[in-house]
């Protein structure tokens, strides 16, 4: 049996690993995760049919951001700022050099 690649893109794999690691570190239980994720999928699915690919992980990411925001461990404003710091780091790092977060 040839194994299929489980994740289409590296960020989906990282998101998956991050979520599982957080749950195992006691940040939330898996049933709580499933309930929150199910609710996001339901909300997204009401607007349009989800194909289980990229849209599935988009819903996953939105769920995790929401949980961490409500828990206060990664407030939305902080996450947003950090996202832009990473973007700035990529834009200011010459091609081929390792990208590091600026101060």
């Amino acid at each position, binding site marked *: 049996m040839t194994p299929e690649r489980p994740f289409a893109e590296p960020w989906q794999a990282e998101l998956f690993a991050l979520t599982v690691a957080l749950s*195992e570190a006691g940040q939330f239980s898996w049933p709580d995760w499933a309930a929150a994720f199910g609710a996001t999928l339901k909300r997204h699915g009401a607007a349009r049919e989800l194909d289980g690919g990229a849209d599935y992980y988009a819903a996953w990411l939105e769920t995790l951001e929401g949980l961490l925001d409500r828990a206060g461990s990664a407030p939305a404003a902080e996450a947003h700022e950090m996202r832009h710091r990473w973007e700035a780091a990529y834009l200011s790092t010459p091609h081929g050099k390792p990208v590091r977060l600026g101060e």
Partner: protein
Amino acid sequence: MPHDDHDHPHSLLPSDPALRVKALETILVAKGLVDPAAMAVILETYETKVGPHLGARVVARAWADPRFRALLLKNANAAMAELGVTGRQGEHVVAVENTPGTHNMVVCTLCSCYPWPLLGIPPAWYKSDAYRARAVREPRKVLAEFGVTLPEGQKVRVWDSTAEVRYLVVPMRPEGTEGMDEAALATLVTRDSMIGTGLPLAP
């Protein structure tokens, strides 16, 4: 657009979701809420180690060994443990056996609960709205789309997974496999046959 170093002297910007994941990870690692080493182990496990070949070993053993089959149907986790198949999202597995009278099929209508230690990460179609909604409503139609046509007398039973209980379908051993050893039998057990949307391969 072709990538040109004159137009794009900086590093290639990751996609929006990739940046958001990076942001969460940076924040949580800095706060000590998640361990990057633990993440790396999880990544490696699900990208390279866990997959349907593990479920196939369990099914092949059940086909070959009546004692193991009985244990699998009574206490799937005890049987799985004998083969060293354990892990997260597989703490409570129920094995459901196909018979000439009943074909079993598994879905998660809530999200995408799936027996990771046996089958790995679910395929996209398992996570799609279409499958999640239709598997319960019109299982025979869904099966037909997977190329599975069941005899008229065989009824379909659909099992809805939860965050607590995961299901493994034990397909019927194909005819013409008498005398095959477990390793050869395992090659006939497809992922879809263990979800119930497929049948094992013919020898």
